[in-house]
């Protein structure tokens, strides 16, 4: 009798042991993401990049702005790890400073694009009918806009006024993130609309409606969290493309003012010294390339992790 009780408790003990820790949605996603080796490596690279740009200036002594003609165009050395530019400023210090701006532009532009995209997509998908129709026609129209020429046109027309209003750096910063954001929300809007169309038919939405939850709360508190996976993937990839777009603008001389060393601007300044000081071009270019490549690989890994049905 006592033996059988003992055996019973042993069995239940084994069962309890066999039961794994509760698995959450994000835990599952994290496990799938970790399996994607390239994406993991990319995340590490990206994190390193961010740490270098944010904390680097605190430990790396040379100044990014001090002009010293006696040190112009020096090749990389122990003192100046990535050499100096035509005015004798330290390249690494400038790259770290520029990285802060380039990354900030990328993230801010992504936030603008995601906000507009989610708002338009959620409204269109949830309300449906005529509102959906109008919003989707507007989305189609924006998809048909020539992005690069329009970016250039907007910056060309508005930069002087914004410069006067907000100062040369903040003015151009807001203009660039706003313009990049406003020309890149369309894919997210379509994505979110699609998920909303199918999710709004589900029981949990019906249940929420029954207990009297307001429409905006249903949209953003109940349905939106269920569409987060694809949104996160799109957001990640859009940070990369925004960084490239900003650097293109700076490279064309239409971005930040000359003394603001974004990565694109550094390349623009360096192109005239290609033969004498290739490090002026190679290092900033390599930083852009590595950052964007990491973001793209990370986006790929996130797609596999968060959106398993999309997997090819």
């Amino acid at each position, binding site marked *: 009798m006592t033996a059988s009780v003992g055996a019973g408790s042993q069995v239940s003990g084994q069962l309890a042991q066999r039961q794994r820790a509760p698995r959450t949605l994000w835990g599952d996603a994290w496990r799938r993401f970790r399996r994607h080796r390239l994406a993991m490596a990319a995340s590490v690279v990206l994190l390193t990049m961010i740490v270098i740009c944010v904390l680097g200036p605190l430990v790396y002594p040379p100044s990014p702005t001090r002009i010293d003609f006696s040190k112009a165009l020096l090749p990389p050395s122990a003192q100046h790890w990535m050499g100096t530019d035509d005015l004798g400023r330290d390249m690494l210090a400038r790259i770290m400073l520029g990285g802060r701006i380039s990354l900030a532009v990328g993230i801010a532009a992504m936030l603008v694009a995601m906000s507009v995209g989610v708002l338009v997509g959620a409204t269109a998908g949830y309300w449906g009918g005529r509102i959906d129709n109008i919003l989707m026609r507007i989305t189609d*129209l924006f998809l048909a806009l*020539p992005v690069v020429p329009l970016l250039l*046109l907007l910056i060309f027309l508005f930069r002087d006024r914004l410069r006067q209003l907000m100062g040369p750096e903040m003015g151009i910063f807001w203009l660039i993130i706003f313009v990049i954001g406003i020309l890149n929300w369309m894919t997210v809007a379509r994505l979110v609309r699609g998920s909303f169309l199918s999710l709004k038919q589900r029981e949990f939405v019906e249940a929420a409606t029954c207990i009297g939850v307001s429409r905006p709360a249903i949209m953003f508190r109940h349905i939106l969290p269920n569409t987060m996976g694809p949104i996160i993937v799109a957001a990640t990839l859009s940070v990369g493309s925004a960084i490239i777009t900003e650097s293109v603008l700076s490279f*064309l001389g239409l971005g930040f003012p000359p003394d603001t060393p974004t990565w694109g601007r550094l390349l623009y300044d360096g192109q005239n010294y*290609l033969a004498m000081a290739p490090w002026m*071009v190679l290092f900033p*270019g390599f930083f852009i390339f590595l950052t964007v490549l990491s973001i793209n690989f990370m986006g790929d890994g996130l797609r596999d992790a968060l959106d398993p049905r999309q997997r*090819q």
Partner: protein
Amino acid sequence: MGTYILRRLVFAVPTLIGISMILFLILALAPGDPLAQFAADPSVPPEVRENIRRQLGLDDPIHIQYLKWFRSMISGDWGFSFASRAPVASLIWQRLPQTLLVVGSAYVLSVLIAIPIGVLSSIRPYSWFDNIATTFAFVGFSVPTFFTGLVLILVFSVNLRWLPFIYDSTLRVNSFETFILQIKQMIMPVTVLALFQTGAMTRFVRSAMLDNLPQDYTRTARSKGLAERTVIIRHVLRNSLIPVVTLVALGVPTIFSGAIVTEQIFRINGIGELLIKSIQNSDTPVVMAITFIFATLVVLFNLIADVIYGILDPRIRYD
């Protein structure tokens, strides 16, 4: 078929009108008076300024201004450049051949490279070949074109001295030597443009192939005893090319935008270079005309893509 094309055409017109409205709105909202220079000039009496305003239609209600502007944009009457006083249309015609040559070669090249690589990748997905191709594709669309351009110049012009780094558009091809020179100066710009485009297109061909490979008709073709090569090329590839052809048409405006940067790097005096120069000179008529051309290109190639898709895939019907 005829009604399908007609319907797409009817839908393209409102898009073009919508885009033109956005362009005009941006221009109208932009700060700054077009006659600011006159206003600052004390030798121009206020009555004259008023007359000029009225003549130019600046006091008209905004929708009248828009209609006038749209009519002249459509008819190719783009006005005169502020900077050179030349008609905008003739400026653009001068620049067009260089851009078309470089953009066209780059595009043909990237299609020719992307299709075989995409097909080979899809036959054995996640094999070493596919992995290398995927990595290259990711590198292709992660490197900003201006960086690839500068690195190519550094390697092939500065260090090896094989290729010229400035594009000479005055070169006339009339002998074998000049032909070689032309090819040599085109190698780098074309490579830069093609690299970016090939990356995206390879991925697209691959995924289109992967969509078709597990289909029933593929199994039927195999069970008929056809050679694997025939199955892939005659059956799967043919069907996979339908979306690819659409993408090729849709990508034309993108590669034109890519030319803006490429022309800047290699100093090719094409349309993109004209756009940048006009922006720097605040030459509004030229900037507007070029932006309008780009917008028209997008609408036009969207239409072409739709029509080709309708012709190639009879299942697509517009309703």
